[in-house]
C-alpha cells in the first residue's frame, strides 16, 4: 500500500502522484488529509483501490474506468460524473449531481445526496450503473434517467419525503427502488409504479447486503425494508411532440 499525504498539496500535483503510483503498479493507495482536492480518480483506467481520508473535492471519479474508491468522509458535487466502471463507497453524504450521466460502475453512499442526482444515468448492454443511497435525495432526482438502477433507502428520514420535487421527470429508462416515504405529487408523469419481480428481489438483496456490510448496518433489518419500484412509462417520452415543417 502506498500512502500519500495530501495536506496542502495542490490537486494537480496530488492527482499526478496518484497516477504515478498506479502506473508503477500500486494496488492500494491511501490518501490522508484530503481537503477539497478536486478530480481525484478522474479518467483512471485500472483496477487499483484508492482509500480517501478526509473530504475529496468536486468531480471525484469523473470518467473513471475501473478503480475502487472508498471515502471516509463526505463526497462533494459530481461524484462519479460520466463514470464508466468501478466502485465508489462514501461513508458520509454526497453533493449535487452525483452519478451524472454514469454509464457503468457502482456508487454506495451512506447518507444523503444533493440535487440533480442520477440525472441522465444510462445503461448499455452489460454496463448497468447502480447507485445505492442510504438517506434521502434532493430535487430533480433521476431526471432524464435513461438506464441503470438506483436504490433510495431514506434511512433516518422518517416523517419526511425521501425525494424532492421533479423526481424522475423525463425518465425514459432504468429502474428506481424507493422506500415508501415520499409525496407522489413530486414525481414526473413519465414514471409509473411496477411490481417487484424475483429478479428485482435478488438484485435488492445483493446490493442491500453490500450496503449493510460497507456501512455496518444490521443486514436483516435492511433486507426487511419495503421498496416501491418505478419504471418508465415509455422509452420515448417526447416522441409525439413534433410536427413536420
Amino acid at each position, binding site marked *: 500500500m502506498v500512502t500519500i499525504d495530501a495536506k496542502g498539496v495542490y490537486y494537480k500535483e496530488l492527482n499526478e502522484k496518484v497516477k504515478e503510483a498506479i502506473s508503477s503498479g500500486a494496488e492500494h493507495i491511501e490518501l490522508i488529509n484530503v481537503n477539497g482536492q478536486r478530480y481525484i480518480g478522474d479518467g483512471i483506467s485500472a483496477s487499483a483501490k484508492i482509500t480517501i481520508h478526509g473530504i475529496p473535492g468536486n468531480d471525484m471519479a469523473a470518467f473513471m*474506468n475501473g478503480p475502487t474508491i472508498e471515502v471516509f468522509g463526505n463526497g462533494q458535487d459530481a461524484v462519479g460524473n460520466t463514470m464508466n466502471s468501478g466502485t465508489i463507497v462514501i461513508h458520509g453524504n454526497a453533493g449535487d449531481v452525483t452519478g451524472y450521466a454514469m454509464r457503468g460502475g457502482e456508487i454506495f453512499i451512506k447518507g444523503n445526496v444533493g440535487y*440533480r442526482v442520477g440525472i441522465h444515468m444510462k445503461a448499455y448492454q452489460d454496463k448497468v450503473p447502480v447507485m445505492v443511497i442510504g438517506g434521502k435525495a434532493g430535487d430533480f432526482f433521476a431526471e432524464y434517467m435513461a*438506464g441503470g438502477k438506483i436504490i433510495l433507502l431514506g434511512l433516518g428520514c422518517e416523517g419526511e419525503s425521501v425525494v424532492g420535487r421533479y423526481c424522475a421527470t423525463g425518465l425514459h429508462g432504468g429502474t428506481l427502488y424507493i422506500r415508501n416515504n415520499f409525496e407522489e405529487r413530486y414525481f414526473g408523469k413519465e414514471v409509473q409504479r411496477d411490481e417487484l419481480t424475483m429478479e428485482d428481489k435478488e438484485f435488492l438483496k445483493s446490493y442491500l447486503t453490500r450496503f449493510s456490510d460497507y456501512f455496518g448496518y444490521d443486514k436483516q433489518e435492511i433486507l426487511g425494508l419495503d421498496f416501491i419500484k418505478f419504471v418508465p412509462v415509455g*422509452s*420515448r417520452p417526447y416522441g409525439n411532440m413534433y410536427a413536420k415543417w
Partner: protein
Amino acid sequence: MALSYAVPNFLIERDESRCIDCQVCVRQCANEVHKFDEDDEKIVSDTMKCVNCHRCVVLCPTKALTVREFPLEFKKNGHWKSDDIKSIYIQAETGGVLLAGMGNDKPYPIYWDKMLINASQVTNPSIDPLREPMEIKTFLGRKPASLEIENGKLKTKLPPQLELEVPVMFSAMSFGSISLNAHKSLARAAREVGTFFNTGEGGLHRDLADFGDNCIVQVASGRFGVHQEYLDAGSAIEIKIGQGAKPGIGGHLPGEKVGPEVSQTRMIPEGSDAISPAPHHDIYSIEDLRQLIYSLKEATNYKKPVFVKIAAVHNVAAIASGIARAGADVIAIDGFRGGTGAAPLRTRDSVGIPIEFALAAVDTRLRQEGIRNQVSLVIGGSIRNSSDIVKAVALGADAVYIGTAALMALGCHLCQKCYTGKCNWGIATQDPRLVKRLNPEIGARRAANLLKAWKHEIKELLGGMGINALESLRGNRLMLRGIDLTEKELEILGIKAAGE
C-alpha cells in the same frame, strides 16, 4: 380522417416528351413522390410529399423533371406571409411543435456581404501566391503571454495546440444525425487536407478509431458515447454548451434513428430516444464550466486543448470572457444561421444573433481585457465561401467551422428535411439503402476539393492585400470596410465605412 387544409409547397412537372419511363425517379425518391401507375402505365407524382431535394431532378437521365415552388398565391397581405399561414394549418391539424432541419433561412441581413476586403495598389505591392510563399497554417490553443528563448531554442512549454493546414474545420455533426458514410467522408477529407472533423455528441464509430489525429471529440449534455477511450482518441475535446440553430435547448435524436450502429456508438439501447438535456447538469455557472474543463484536462493529462462551443447570443462577449477565464483553450461560437439535424422552427429562426457581430464583439472584449492570447476563436454558422473566411479572420477569428457547406460538398441540396431521416443524398439518414448512395471515397474527394479550392482563394485574397501570412490578417480590421451599415453596426464590427 378529417380534411387536411395543408397546401403543397412544390410543383413537379414532368416533360412527357422527354420522359422515357425508366423509373429512376421512382426508385430514387425515399419520400415516395413518384409512382408507376400500373393501370395507366405511366408515372405519377404526389406533389404533397415532395421536399424539393433535387435527387430525381439530378438523376433523371433525360432531365425531364422540373420542381418549382408551388404557385400558390394567398390574397396579398403585408403581415401574413404564406409561411405564417401554412404553419398555422399544420399546427391546428397536429398540435405539434414545428420541427425543421438545417439553419435559419429567414431574410435577415447577411453582414458578410456588407463588408468589403482591401487590396494593395501602388504603395505596397500585392503578392502572387503562385510564385511566393504564403503561410496560412494555423495553431489553435492557448498562447503564453511571453516566450522564453534559450540558445536559439524555445524554452517556454507551450500548451497543447491543434495544427491546421487550412483555417477551416468540419463542425460538429453527430453520427446519428448524419450517416456513417458522411462521417467517413469528412474524416478522410480532414486527414487529406490537414484539418479536423468533429464527432458531435454521438460518439466515435469504431471504423473511425484511427482518425484520431484529425478528430475533435465532443462532450455534450447527454454524454453519449463519452468514455475514456473516446476522450483519449481525439486530438482535442469540445464541450458543447450550445449551437446556433437552437441556442438554449437540448436535442432529441428520435428512436427511429437509433439503429444497431448508432446504438453501439452512443452506447444506448436500440430504438430509444437519445435525449440531450438543455444544460449540462453539472454546469450551472462559469465556475462549474471550469470544473468540467479541468475534469477533462485531468482525465487526459493536460495533453489536449479543450474547446467550449456556445451559440452566439446577446451577451456573448461577457460569456466568452468567462469561458476564457474558466480555462478553455479554444472558444467556438456558432451564429444564428448555423445548421442542425433538427430544431424547433421558432427557435431556429428567431433565437441568437449574427455571427459577424458576435465575433467582433468577442474579439474586441477579449482584447480590451488583455486575454485574447489565452484562447483561440473559431466561428461557424454561416460560412459560405473563402471570402467569408477572410472577413472572419480580419474580424478576429483564428479559424472557422463549416457544417452546412461541408454537407453541400457531399451532395446536400438544402431541402431542410434532415429530421425526417429520409435524406435522399445519403447524408442525414440511417437507412442503409440511402446511406450507400454516398460513397465515402467520392464524398472525401469532394469535401477535400472544396477546402483545397478555398485554400487557394484565401491565399489569393491575402496576396491581393499584400499580406503573406494569415497571422498578419488576424484581427486586422483595417482590411475591411463596411457598406450599407449604420454607425452603430460599424462601431460593433469595429470597421470603417467604405470610402473612409
